[in-house]
């Protein structure tokens, strides 16, 4: 075991994956990832072409050009960077470019803030890109490897974002166990795409104009690919677990057996919630946790099955939609619609606002309104 931050762990995963091209633009808190990776390259530890582009819009654009040219391509970003590239993220998904992106989740401006929430991930939730959230540095490493396989499966072929909480994971040093370089690269295997742009002997036109007669059908390919990704994630998770002994699946059920209450959340908060769940279980409360690991595709059935037996669900959203409810709570509501389960949604941790075990207890015991940790009430429930 090594002491590594989430950022460092991901950089090591990238070194082992040894992508052909990494077009990237710096932004806090993603910077440690690209800096550590760059230093490894500077020491001749990999063969990657790092392209230091002039903006994130160009980072994703170059990534598309590269991935469709038959080169394994990765990038990393956060917050404003993701917002600036959002236009092209949709296009990457539609063109089926299997780009893996390390995302250090950070609050979107304004006001400008460098700390964690999930608003940046939410911005691209309709993009057709896969989004896998992780709980800690170890999982950040594991899921990077999984993401490469997932993105490149010919029945999926979509960009995959590995989402780790900015600072809380990217900058926290934790014990991490890495696979051997050999094992890791054997697991990820080689990059292959059906039509390489560089195949001059078999020229293709990529990115055509689609009129109403074909747009709907072309878009629908992604819907089908997302459906398949749902199983693919669990398959790959099990395959990887045989090497790591650690299992990653679309949802994680924690002590839901016989639970009356369940908390639903994503990312590093799940760790804190687990501690609270253990304490409450010790106190005799019948409570559990459902961690949504794959946010896109959203494991609707998985959520429904996991929560089938509980009476009440509390969803913790680390993003907000002014004029509407939290995105995760809304989707869980749609998933549980008609189930008769009581449902409550709370928004917490925007812009890096801390969530301590005491706060989680307050939420569970109904001592706060929709906004947890906000100074003075919002009067909204």
């Amino acid at each position, binding site marked *: 075991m090594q002491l590594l*931050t989430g950022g460092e762990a991901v950089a090591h995963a990238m070194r082992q994956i040894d992508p052909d091209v990494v077009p990237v633009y710096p932004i806090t808190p993603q910077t440690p990832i690209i800096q550590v990776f760059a230093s490894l390259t500077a020491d001749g530890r990999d063969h990657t072409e790092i392209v230091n582009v002039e903006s994130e819009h160009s980072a994703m654009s170059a990534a598309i050009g590269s991935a469709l040219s038959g080169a394994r391509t990765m990038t990393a970003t956060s917050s404003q960077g993701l917002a600036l590239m959002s236009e092209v993220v949709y296009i990457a998904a539609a063109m089926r470019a299997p780009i893996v992106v390390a995302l250090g989740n950070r609050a979107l401006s304004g006001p400008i803030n460098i700390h964690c929430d999930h608003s940046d991930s939410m911005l691209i939730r309709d993009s057709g890109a896969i989004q896998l959230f992780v709980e*800690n540095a170890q999982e950040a490493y594991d899921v990077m490897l999984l993401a490469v396989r997932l993105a490149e499966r010919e029945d999926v072929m979509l960009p995959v974002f590995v989402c780790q909480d900015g600072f809380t994971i990217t900058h926290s040093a934790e014990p991490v166990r890495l696979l051997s370089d050999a094992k890791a690269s054997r697991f990820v295997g080689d990059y292959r795409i059906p039509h390489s742009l560089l195949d001059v002997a078999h020229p293709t036109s990529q990115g055509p104009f689609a009129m109403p007669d074909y747009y709907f059908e072309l878009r629908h390919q992604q819907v089908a690919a997302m459906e398949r990704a749902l199983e693919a994630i669990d398959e790959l998770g099990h395959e990887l677990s045989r090497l790591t002994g650690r299992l990653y699946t679309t949802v994680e059920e924690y002590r839901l057996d016989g639970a009356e209450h369940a908390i639903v959340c994503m990312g*590093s908060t799940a760790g804190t919630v687990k501690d609270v769940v253990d304490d409450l279980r010790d106190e005799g409360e019948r409570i559990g946790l459902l961690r949504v690991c794959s946010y896109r595709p959203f494991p609707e059935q998985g959520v429904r099955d996991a929560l089938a037996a509980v009476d009440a669900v509390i969803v913790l959203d680390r993003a907000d939609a002014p004029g509407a409810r939290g995105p995760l709570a809304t989707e869980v509501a749609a998933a549980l619609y008609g189930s008769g389960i009581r449902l409550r949604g709370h928004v917490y941790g925007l812009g890096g606002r801390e*969530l*301590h*075990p005491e706060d989680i207890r307050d939420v569970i015991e109904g001592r706060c309104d929709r906004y947890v940790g906000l100074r003075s009430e919002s009067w909204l429930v």
Partner: protein
Amino acid sequence: MIEVRWHARAGQGAKTAAQLLAEAMLRAGKYVQAFPEYGPERRGAPMRAYTRIDRQPIRRHDSVTHPDVVVVLDPSLVHESDVTDGMEEGGLVLVNATTVPPELSGANVRCVTAEASVNVAMAGAIAAALGEPSPNDVADAAVALLGKKADADALRAAAEEGFNA
């Protein structure tokens, strides 16, 4: 679980010190977590870092609010902020100074001083105060973490210094 809070000024290496202690504890077979508090502040600004140490894996991902140990790398900070904030009675405060600052003499906490030139030494000092990990683990950790930047023997010496401070 032992929770440590580091008070320092940006640039004094509190982040490294927090990781160093974690690295050493990891070598001593403990589960650990180490992270700094970030802001737009620059070199010289007050900042904090944290180290968690436990026998089981550490899952929580919030900052330390009730530290068992507080380390003050820059004594001048005690004027600006309540470094003992959130501490239990009898908690351990380690100050990088020759004498206990008056602000702390009052507080009902165990206040130890140790004048350490570098953060490595400070990690040694707190290891000494906690009774673990061993000087060797601290030294190894220092070499592992800083070996690229500094000469190994110097690091080991600094770790020693801390234990005897």
